[in-house]
């Protein structure tokens, strides 16, 4: 069972490999060092004809500031594509860096870079699958890919398989719990089962703030305020920059009408997540109900401005 999914997720990812409309021509056997220096126009022309290996060094040289912008952009895009076509990842990185620097706001360039990063990510995943197919990292990656595809059962099996190999593997119970909360067919007791996984995770790794945070959310949902406050507090302690945990703590304190107590964590959440409307709404409520009318009005105003900027939150 453990090996059921094998390389299924990798395979699907490989299917997404992207190298643009480059059709590689018969590659020259001539060493790059012996090639003559190419003009930018010649390098671009070679790349367009699929002579990638021959063109890459010329394309790099075409990215200097003295070359016209349109030519530089064309050379950069072709450089990315050619580098990926011949799997020269360092060159690809370099072209991406140059494009990012020179054409940071060009949508066509950004489109190319998105795909290039995606392609590089897939290739690295392939590397992992090829070089260490039975490693925990490989199975974790495979499980994550399966999760992204909504293949909950195989993903869960992958995680369980990791735990069979290493019952104390860090982070796996957390991911199992996450799958249980994500899969729509997990059944009515999924939150309880997920809770057990998060508790097991904390047994292995007491410093896992994410596990404490989700346990806090589950307790909040069940209106188990003491448990929720304890979990959110612990998550905030473990990770002082965990804005959601601070918000959760503040929300719990508002729910039990401890409005003054709710203000400090909500102020912290506000600093960490200034663009989050929920923080301002909850903070405004805490302030209003503890007699700080002016401050509350300010927070309500921020909330209004953020929500009107976002439009209605009605689910699509």
């Amino acid at each position, binding site marked *: 069972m453990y090996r059921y999914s094998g390389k299924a997720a990798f395979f699907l990812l490989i299917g997404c490999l992207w190298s643009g409309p480059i059709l590689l021509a018969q590659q020259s056997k001539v060493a790059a060092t012996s090639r003559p220096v190419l003009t930018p126009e010649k390098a671009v022309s070679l790349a367009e004809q699929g002579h990638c290996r021959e063109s890459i060094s010329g394309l790099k040289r075409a990215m200097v500031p003295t070359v016209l912008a349109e030519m530089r952009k064309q050379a950069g895009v072709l450089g990315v594509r050619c580098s990926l076509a011949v799997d020269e990842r360092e060159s690809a990185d370099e072209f991406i860096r140059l494009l990012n620097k020179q054409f940071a706001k060009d949508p066509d360039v950004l489109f190319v870079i998105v795909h290039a990063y995606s392609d590089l990510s897939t290739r690295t995943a392939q590397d992992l699958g090829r070089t260490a197919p039975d490693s925990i990292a490989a199975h974790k990656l495979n499980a994550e890919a399966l999760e992204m595809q909504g293949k909950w059962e195989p993903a869960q099996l992958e995680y369980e398989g990791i735990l069979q190999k290493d019952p104390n593997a860090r982070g796996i119970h957390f991911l199992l719990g996450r799958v249980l909360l994500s899969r729509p067919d997990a059944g009515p007791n999924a939150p309880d089962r997920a809770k057990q996984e998060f508790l097991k995770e904390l047994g292995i790794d007491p410093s896992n703030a994410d596990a404490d945070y989700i346990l806090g959310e589950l307790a909040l949902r069940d209106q188990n305020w003491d448990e929720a406050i304890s979990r959110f507090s612990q998550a905030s302690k473990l990770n002082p920059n965990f804005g959601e945990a601070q918000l959760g703590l503040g*929300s719990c304190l508002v729910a039990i009408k401890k409005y003054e107590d709710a203000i400090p964590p909500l102020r912290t959440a506000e600093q960490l997540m200034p663009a989050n*409307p*929920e923080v301002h*709404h909850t903070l405004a409520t805490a302030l209003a109900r503890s007699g700080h009318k002016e401050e509350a009005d300010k927070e309500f105003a921020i909330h209004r401005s953020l929500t009107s900027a976002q*439009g*209605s*939150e*009605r*689910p*699509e």
Partner: protein
Amino acid sequence: MKMPSRTRIAQLTRRDFVSGMMAGSLLLPRCPLFALPEAPKFPFEEVAPEKSGIKWVHSSGKSPEKYLPESSGPGCAFLDYDNDGWMDIYLVNSGKCDFFTPNPPLRNALYKNNRDGTFTDVTERAGVSARGYGQGVAVGDYDGDGFPDIYVTQYGRSILYHNNRDGTFTDVTEKAGVAAPGWASSAVWFDYDNDGRLDLFVGQFAEFSKELNKPCGIHEDGRIHYCIPKVYSAMPSWLFHNNGDGTFTDVSKESGIASRRGKVWGVVATDINNDGLMDLWVSNDTLPDFLFVNRGKGKFDEIAETAGAAYSDAGRARSGMGVDSADFDNDGWMDLFVANLDREIFAIYKNNHDETFDDLASSTGVGKATKFMSGWGLKFFDYDNDGYLDLLLANGNPDDLIATLHGEVTYEEPPLLFHNTGRSFENVSAQSGPVFAKLLSARGMAIGDFDNDGATDVLVAINDGAPVLLRNTIGSQNHWLGVNLVGTKSNIDAIGARITYQAGDLKQQRMKVGGGSFLSSHDPRIVLGIGKRTKFDWFQIQWPQPSGKVERITDLPVDRYITIVEGSGKWK
């Protein structure tokens, strides 16, 4: 929620059972040894159109263009238009407008109660067919002549029908000045300035016309869906002051009502701060809900944000639709309810007695039950007459293609029934029979006792379908008193009156709110349940301002309707 403990309904004792068996065996020797189990008694049963005589069917005129008003109606009403003591029915239909020309023409319907469980269509004679693109109905005796008048909200131009007291009505909209051009949704009659006359609030939905219709509804399934109304501009609602001479003055601006633009679906007139001034709880689609608090001298403050009733707990505006207000926890303060769209959950707000509210959706089970529901008509009422206000919700998604987008959500949805246990609410829908398994495209919902048995019945208006009449089968198993309040100095419909009553260990309070639900209007009588207790000890009414008079009445009958006229100090 703290509520008085509920007296348990007497159970059949073992002794009763044994003696009954023995008696049965002596008196009915030929009965089979084991009686067949009785069919389960469910609280509501559907009255088929063949039985009721209500053959009218709503038609929205659904078009390929998916004009948004097609998805919202209709409303309905229980009213006693001929003052014979029996609830008649009014049903709103679509009709001719800029995007729809029905052929043959459509019309609203007035059904007269024949007092035998059947109804007769008297629309044409009564002259209330309307024929515009109707949405809802609000019933109130605005001229205080003792006969209810009808306000029909429409997309286009609304209509006020004055009751001529002879079974006919006259369209007095122009003279009255209450046409409210635009897309009117829910309306409510209430006396905001306590001058003893019923004023009129008319909610306005978004700015819309055939020309403004947006092709925005193309979703990932490639089909055109009804638009989410956030693409349409919000509009101000109307408040009309009753001048007492058959005319009204538009006071929307000076009152503060028009200062907030919304996309109004539901409205209920209530008093959230016990100051004797009627407030308005108003739901908005895709915008924060409104709580207009009446500060006197004709001014309203909109306080929903600070009251904690504008948004979800997460600070998100939802798609508010049906609303109601009632003191469901019997603490003397009016609480609020608003139904929303699927995946938003509905809100049940407990009044904190300081113009703030807490949403109890999670602790009452309302949140869990409504997660995938879209609610429209709804009302707090005591369906089993045990003395506690229960809650019935009529549901249905506005998007007829919703199932192609979300597997958990359906276009037609079953109603929900929450029983008030005295401590909280219990979702009893699953054990309440086939009515609560029936999938409906419900919109408006009205409550009223059409057969005068003290058990409050329900009328559900269906988008593109026949209305569903639900007869209450269990309310009359408990004892009750039906009260018709007639104001003399205060408004004649006694909107805003507060009732307190005691029957043994049961002491309860009620307020007569204006409107509530969605696009609909209700039986004006209040039914007070007392469970198995056999008598009322006393009954106290605090009449609305301007009198504010308090009258206490003892020696009350039980299991019948009575009328109490303000100032008389007695019932009849």
